[in-house]
């Protein structure tokens, strides 16, 4: 047996009696063996520590706490539990704060964009086109998103077309209304045509639907009057 094999055998704890032949003729290996024996003796002399007398008492309390914690974590989600017990690390807390800030910022921006969205013209003008000249911007109707974009764009185009007419009506139509003729009549703003019309309630009832007349006043050709 050579020195390397002998030392491997010594390290593996094989007894000196087995290696006696080589050790008797090799002082290096014998020294190696003696040194290791001394070291192992020193290590085995090391005192073993023992647990304190209240070890089991404290262990029982600790297990009870762990069981209580397990019940608690079953009742509330982990992150709530961590928040409750304050066991978030600084990194986790910072990341959570950043995430909340990001969500709030994006949400605020989206709300701002929705409230100030002006494709062409103002929201009030769009409302006028749809026949609600005096309706407030905020309504309890269905959400804006339900109106198809194509419809909205068409309304805006229509508004652009009638804007000059509205201006003209404001300048000219009001003086042309005959006070005598309005004794039994009503002045109504036609949102589609962008002008004031005067009509009796009777004619309005008769002609309220489907007429394409363009008269400004009188009982003839009052035109389509959308809901006011």
């Amino acid at each position, binding site marked *: 047996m050579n020195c390397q094999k002998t030392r491997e055998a010594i390290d593996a704890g094989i007894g000196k009696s087995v290696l006696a032949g080589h050790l008797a003729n090799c002082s290096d290996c014998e020294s190696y063996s003696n040194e290791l024996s001394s070291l192992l003796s*020193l290590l085995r002399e*090391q005192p073993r520590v023992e*647990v304190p007398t209240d070890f089991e008492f404290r262990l029982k309390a600790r297990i009870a706490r762990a069981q209580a914690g397990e019940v608690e974590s079953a009742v509330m989600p982990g992150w709530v539990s961590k928040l409750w017990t304050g066991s978030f690390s600084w990194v986790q807390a910072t990341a959570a704060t950043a995430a909340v800030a990001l969500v709030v910022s994006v949400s605020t921006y989206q709300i701002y964009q929705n409230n100030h969205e002006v494709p062409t013209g103002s929201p009030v003008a769009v409302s006028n086109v749809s026949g609600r000249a005096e309706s407030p911007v905020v309504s309890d109707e269905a959400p804006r998103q339900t109106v198809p974009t194509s419809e909205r764009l068409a309304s805006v185009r229509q508004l652009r077309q009638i804007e000059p007419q509205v201006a003209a009506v404001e300048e000219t139509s009001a003086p042309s209304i005959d006070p005598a003729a309005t004794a039994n009549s009503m002045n109504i703003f036609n949102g589609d045509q962008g002008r004031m019309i005067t009509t009796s309630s009777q004619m309005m009832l008769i002609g309220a639907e489907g007429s394409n007349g363009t008269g400004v006043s009188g009982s003839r050709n009052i035109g389509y009057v959308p809901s006011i």
Partner: protein
Amino acid sequence: MDDHSLLAATREGDEAAFQEIVRRYRNQITNYVYRMIDDYDRAVDIAQETFVRVYMNMERYQATYSFSTYIYRIAHNLAITELRQRKRRRLIPLPTFFSDKDSEEVEVDLPDQGQVLADEAIIADERRQAVTTAIASLPEKYRAALVLCDLEEKSYEEISEVLGLPTGTVKSRINRARNLLKEKLRDIL
């Protein structure tokens, strides 16, 4: 009653069976952790945490290998976590005052033979303290293998399972640890 029978009884609600498991392993586990982290109070604390984990995960334990290996593995992982947390907190363990920057070379402050009182007990105590300090100064990967082999007297196969390493690596680490200790304790060997 063997460990697996005690565990089965514990699962059935037998608290006395779990007490017996604690009684069998409490000192071994505490001793192992103490040798790893060189702090008795924390070693006791970690030993308790080891038993808490055993108890709380009783249902998940599968007897694929010995319970002894299983509990030592839990204790080892907790001890390593403790050492890493200490490094993160920059706590300097006492033994590193005697070691150089890579913790490989240790100048153990052994008593001058001429000044030692001729009291056998005191001499023995000094030697034990020197060995304790030298063990604690070993790099943790060598320390774990050495403590399990030469203090806890585990087989290579058990150490391999506890540390999750091939047997060859375990043998190599044990030899390396012993050689380092021989260097550190040359004056008293």
